[in-house]
């Protein structure tokens, strides 16, 4: 039985269709995916992403202990900032890709993929050492995302007191609509925007009031609720990886093109030796972007052919609504291919022409 977020009833009443994702029953769309996609690109879209997991690490050794589990470097990050990082296995493949909110040297909050929450919790507990406490707080947070060019003005209009909004990949606690909310300038759409964490044990926490309050405040600016369907097309256009597709227990972050999140000039961490070897020996495969030339929609798992032989597979694909083209990402067994080279995608037994293109498909509009 899939779990439901505290906003399930509100969404159901507003016409959402639901699908099963990562053990949750979540809204896939409210109107239609393409319309919702455009709303985020041109105005602002509100997402319920309460399925995301939150794991807190506290204690004297928090930073040092977590740093031994991640490929990026949380020690170099000041309090109030957020770090994106893969967590790797010893062989360099990926346990999960996460955001780390650094409250202080002794308090970190990890935001993890819904379907990986339990696995991550167990992995972290089994690997972490030192004076730390690990706590899975996922059930206690409601998480919303407000994404799009109007997001900033909408958030400003519901703040209880005038305060500066956090900059890119920063967070702060604010009071809005009478509630304490952890507000970060992050997202998964390629647009400027925010994620809001509501701590449910707070007596003032009211998820429905937050959800409806944002929709009301943004009504004149064209805000609309957006489902998981558009979340996927938006992140695909921005070429942001999705765990289980571009990253997995079979793929290293280097192969997925995430080299800037893999640090070699820091103390030892799980997977460092394997990743270092990959860098020394050169990658055997690499993630590419492609656009379809022939008709047809590429989907996850479809084979990719070049010069008559299979060279890899599609990790994510579909309509890229802003470009009005079909395309996707593919993991190919050749790290030296160039933009403009022709590949073929096998769609239901038919070989369909596609061409490699530069990533991302859609240039991110972050406010840095």
């Amino acid at each position, binding site marked *: 039985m899939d779990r439901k977020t505290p906003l399930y009833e509100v969404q159901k009443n507003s016409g959402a*269709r639901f*699908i099963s994702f990562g053990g949750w029953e979540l809204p*896939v*769309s409210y109107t*239609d*995916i*393409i319309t919702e996609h455009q709303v985020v690109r041109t105005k602002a879209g509100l997402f319920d992403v309460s399925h995301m997991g939150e794991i807190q690490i506290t204690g004297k050794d928090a930073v040092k202990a977590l740093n031994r589990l991640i490929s990026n470097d949380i020690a170099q990050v000041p309090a109030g900032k957020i770090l994106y990082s893969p967590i790797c296995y010893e062989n360099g493949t990926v346990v999960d890709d996460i955001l780390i909110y650094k409250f202080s040297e002794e308090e970190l909050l990890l935001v993890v993929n819904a379907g990986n929450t339990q696995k991550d919790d167990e992995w972290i507990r089994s690997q972490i050492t030192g004076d730390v406490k690990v706590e899975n707080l996922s059930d206690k947070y409601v998480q919303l995302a407000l994404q799009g060019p109007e997001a900033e003005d909408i958030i400003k209009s519901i703040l209880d007191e005038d305060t500066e909004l956090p900059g890119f990949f920063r967070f702060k606690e604010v009071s809005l609509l009478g509630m304490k909310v952890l507000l970060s300038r992050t997202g998964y759409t390629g647009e400027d925007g925010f994620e809001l964490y509501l701590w449910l044990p707070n007596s003032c926490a009211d998820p429905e009031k937050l959800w409806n309050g944002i929709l009301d405040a943004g009504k004149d600016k064209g805000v609309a609720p957006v489902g998981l*369907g558009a979340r*996927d*097309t938006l992140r695909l256009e921005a070429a942001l990886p999705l765990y289980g597709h571009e990253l997995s227990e079979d793929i290293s972050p280097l192969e997925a093109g995430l080299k800037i999140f893999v640090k070699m000039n820091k103390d030892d961490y799980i997977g460092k030796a394997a990743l270092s070897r990959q860098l020394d020996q050169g990658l055997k495969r690499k993630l590419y972007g492609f656009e379809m030339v022939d*008709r*047809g*929609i590429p*989907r996850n798992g479809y084979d990719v052919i070049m010069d008559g032989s299979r060279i890899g597979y599609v990790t994510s694909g*579909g*309509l890229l*609504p802003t470009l009005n083209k*079909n395309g996707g990402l593919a993991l190919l067994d050749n790290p030296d291919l160039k933009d403009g080279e022709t590949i073929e995608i096998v769609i*239901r037994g038919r070989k369909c022409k596609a061409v490699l293109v530069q990533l991302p498909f859609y240039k991110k509009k972050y406010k840095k």
Partner: protein
Amino acid sequence: MEIREGLYYTKDHEWVRVEGNRAYVGITDYAQDSLGSIVYVELPEEGKALSKDEVLGVVESVKAASDIFAPISGTVVEVNEALADNPELINESPYENYMAVLSFENKDELNELLSPAQYEELTKGE
């Protein structure tokens, strides 16, 4: 959700309009609404002989590809080429935009299809 009189239906949400020995096949209003924006339609080849329940074509929405099955046995004598360039026509008017026309002989198979009332009952249960 519109369910038209005078058509046959399947539990897989296809409709069939019979004119003589020609059967027009498309997907229902309920089907297009559940799929959402349709972005690609794969049509069968003309001349292809299909048995009942064989894959006749594919309709892809943004989120997924769905096989469309032949509601009855027959030979493909015509396909709706307009859908190749404008797959969204199915969203706009599902009952005007058939996918293919099957020439059929076995009228008995029509008896296995659903009436509008039976189909309405089915969609209420989903």
